[in-house]
């Protein structure tokens, strides 16, 4: 780094506006200053406990050459300024609580507030993760119970709750695959992925030390079984599939796919991103999968937090259970007689051939607690109804909108439908991106656009089960209005300029990448 830059960072950031921000709600107006522009040197908000601990000067506690090289500048604001700032930022943010969020592949359903109450319980939130088992029996019982219900939902034998997100679950699954094959005497070298897969799949394959082999989808949007068979040999470690796939379609030949992969000694990995579609209806384990990851922040309604935290538990068939990450919480069969149990019912056990740890502690525990609460409220019938109504909503939208937009796969979908703006673009120049941006000003979040990659101008719409028929009608009308308007004389220009009624207008992404400003201090 240059000296000039280093010096710049050490300065108090100008200008010190001292809290001069608009107090009016900012949706659609102006900008909010950064924390650094609200800063006024000498101002503070912190208050710490009176402890009575003897005060010792820093110089006596920390040797000279270990002390900070110069003054640290964060931001100096009052608590009132802090509250104003983050409250105004929150007003510039769309959320599920605000409105429908039909973002395909993301399952942005309503997040029940009871789960927030669970996560706030002091007996859960204030427990140190390194406390001995005698202090954490409630947590361990909770985790063991969650593992059991996740295994029942997926049709698997055992699970690890450590992975912090779906991608972490994928990598865990691939390392399980590697460990299992190594135990059979040969690690193998490739993993097969359909061309409609999420990008995390091939990235995880690389980190798992495997090479990706891509198989094409057939004209019906499913794995091309002949193409798959052509790739299968004894060097294939396994296949990663999402079912229903990212086109929202159920892989009808899943039993044949599983048989073919198993025949060459490969394993089947289930990407749980779309599990919401099949809860209580059909299970990955029954389809023949060996390893399953779940996205609790999708299927089991734990809130997504603007990009995380999630939780990506991995469930496996009996033959893979000895390889699971450890330590894992287990019910001690022997109870008080089990060695080292101290009379406790739950303890930590590392499986015999464990691949090792994959989280600093035990996983995103409070997310896991929220998911268990959600599952207990629903029960078996409630979960099945979730899937049924998610699929009903998606099919209703698909049916309603397939006269306005292209339906590249003209067959019933599962929990999401993939439409295309290709014809609209040819006729008017209005692209999938523009449709999404127009939808923002209609009060809805945009669908996922340009994914899956196998569909031109893709609009991937997942309404979820928690949106009402009235909301679906309003959403459909908005989609139809956007298409009709695009065909009017001024329409394409209006769509290209959308959105208007949002906190900011269309954002210059190219400039952000060309002239990188990753911090306030890097501003030109």
């Amino acid at each position: 780094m240059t000296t000039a830059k280093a010096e710049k960072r050490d300065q108090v950031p100008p200008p010190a506006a001292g809290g001069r921000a608009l107090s009016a709600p900012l949706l659609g107006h102006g900008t909010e200053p950064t924390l650094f522009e609200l800063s006024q040197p000498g101002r503070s908000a912190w208050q710490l406990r009176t402890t009575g601990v003897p005060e010792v000067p820093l110089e006596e506690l920390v040797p000279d050459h270990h002390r900070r090289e110069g003054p640290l500048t964060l931001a100096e604001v009052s608590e009132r300024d802090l509250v104003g700032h983050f409250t105004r930022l929150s007003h510039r943010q769309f959320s599920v609580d605000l409105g429908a969020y039909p973002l395909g592949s993301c399952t942005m359903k309503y997040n029940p507030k009871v789960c927030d109450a669970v996560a706030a319980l002091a007996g859960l939130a204030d427990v140190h993760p390194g406390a001995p088992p005698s202090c954490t029996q409630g947590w361990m019982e909770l985790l063991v119970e969650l593992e059991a219900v996740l295994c029942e939902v997926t049709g698997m034998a055992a699970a690890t709750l450590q992975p912090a997100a779906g991608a972490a679950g994928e990598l865990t699954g691939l390392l399980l695959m590697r460990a299992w094959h190594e135990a059979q005497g040969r690690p193998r070298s490739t993993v097969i992925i359909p061309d409609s897969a999420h990008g995390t799949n091939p990235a995880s394959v690389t980190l798992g030390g495997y090479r990706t082999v891509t198989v094409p989808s057939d004209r019906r949007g499913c794995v091309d079984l002949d193409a798959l068979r052509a790739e299968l040999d004894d060097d294939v470690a396994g296949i990663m599939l999402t079912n229903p796939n990212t086109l929202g379609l159920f892989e009808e030949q899943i039993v044949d796919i599983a048989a073919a992969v198993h025949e060459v000694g490969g394993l089947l990995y289930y990407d749980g991103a779309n599990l919401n579609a099949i809860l209580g209806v059909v299970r990955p384990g029954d389809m023949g999968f060996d390893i399953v990851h779940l996205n609790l922040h999708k299927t089991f309604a734990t809130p997504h937090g603007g990009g995380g935290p999630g939780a990506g538990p991995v469930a496996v068939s009996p033959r893979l259970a000895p390889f699971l990450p450890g330590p894992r919480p287990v019910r001690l069969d022997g109870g008080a007689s089990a060695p080292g149990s101290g009379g406790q019912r739950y303890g930590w056990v590392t499986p015999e051939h464990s691949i090792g740890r994959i989280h600093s502690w035990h996983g995103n525990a409070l997310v896991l607690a929220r998911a268990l609460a959600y599952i207990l409220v629903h029960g078996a019938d409630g979960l099945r109804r979730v899937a049924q109504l998610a699929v009903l909503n998606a099919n209703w939208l698909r049916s309603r909108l397939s006269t306005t937009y292209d339906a590249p796969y003209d067959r019933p979908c599962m929990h999401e439908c993939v439409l295309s703006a290709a014809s609209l673009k040819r006729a008017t120049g209005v692209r999938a991106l523009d449709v999404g941006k127009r939808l923002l000003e209609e009060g809805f979040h945009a669908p996922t656009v340009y994914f899956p990659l196998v569909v031109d101008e893709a609009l991937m719409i997942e309404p979820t089960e928690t949106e009402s028929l009235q909301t679906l009608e309003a959403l459909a009308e908005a989609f139809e209005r956007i298409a009709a308007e695009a065909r009017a004389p001024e329409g394409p220009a209006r769509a290209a300029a959308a959105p208007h009624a949002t906190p900011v207008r269309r954002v210059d992404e190219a400039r952000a990448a060309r002239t990188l400003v990753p911090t306030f201090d890097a501003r030109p």
Partner: protein
Amino acid sequence: MADYTPHTEAEIEAMLGMLGLRDLDELFAVVPEALRLGGLDMAPGRPEPDVLARMGALAGSNRANGTDLVCFAGGGAYDHEVPPVTPALALRSEFVTSYTPYQPEVAQGVLQAVFEFQTLIARLTGLPVSNASLYDGAAALVEGLNLGVAAAGRPGVLMSSGVNPSWRSVARTMAAGTGHAIEEIPLADGVTAWDGASERAPGVVVVAYPNYLGCLEDLGPARRLCDDTGALLVVVFDPVCAGILRSPAAWGADVAVGEGQPLGTPLSFGGPYLGLFACGDDQVRRLPGRLVGETVDAEGRRAYVTTLRAREQDIRREKATSNVCTNQTLMAVTAAVQLGWLGSSGLAEVALRSAQGARYCRQALLAVPGVEPLCTAPVVREFALRLPIPAADVVERLVEEGFLAGIPLDHTYGGDDRGLLVAVTERRTREEIDGFAAAFDKAVR
């Protein structure tokens, strides 16, 4: 049966009618008959109050800090002050219930908060770039190794045993896939004994500051090792101690990684926490995870957007060096709020008071007959002791007295099964420490 679906039976009938279907089961006609489930073997759903009572009972079976136990445990998770204002802001539902900011026009709230988080972490580490968060400290360490190995073009990693043992364990797990050759270097009197390293051409050198035993070690030797070999230096830092300590950048770190839990996130039984990751401008195109950048909107107004997207897994697919997608954004927003509340003076004060408490507590415990220091290097918030009896037994005995005494150390730290790691934050009062020392005296007999 309870759920959160709004459909009336009449609406379901009407929707099925539009689709030409008789019942909901027909929606799943594509699922092969043999695979269809009769029903899950699970209890029926329960109303919210029942579930809340059940979860409350589970919570009641734990012994929580504050209510049941006074916390002297650290080891990567610390009992720092979380003021009411931090959750009041960070847990606003607009932050909690939004997705990854794929549509920046309606996500400026999260994007700007993350941009401010990145700026705060950059200032704290002295490095110019921070990402938008990773899962936890271990994940940040693993990504640091991945970046370093890719940048250096060599798979050898020299890792100080002063790095948190759980994180090292995660790094070993991941190395099965990446093929990194990790050599762990032991500590001698609390500082890394680099002389014992056998790898002569490492791609990455990793050292923790303070290290797992709470000790401050001179990072000069690690930096020189990098200069001599062309390796990248990854420094594991603590965001609270960094308020008073020499910054990773000042020590010459190429990458700084850390656990952000001390910045406003409750202990939470270990998660969700916050992986911190910062690096130099020269490594920005290898940066794992999301990055928010400033730009303008169509009217020239300041705006924020996730940027350098071409690095990420959804675009690079099998060529990506990281698979991170969902991260811990809400904890990053929490950290931005907490650091806003603390400011520079508050963060330094928290670190200073923790160091004062640790000094006072260490002296009180060393006055207990049979208790010895495990090492003599200077410490800040945490220190290691050798006890006259197994540490796990002492921890259990002190739980009965209302104290969580610390984290037992494994054999590799030289205390057999008698090493104990004790942490003292700014929240510990003199009265609590005095009571702890008195109980400790009884417990080690």
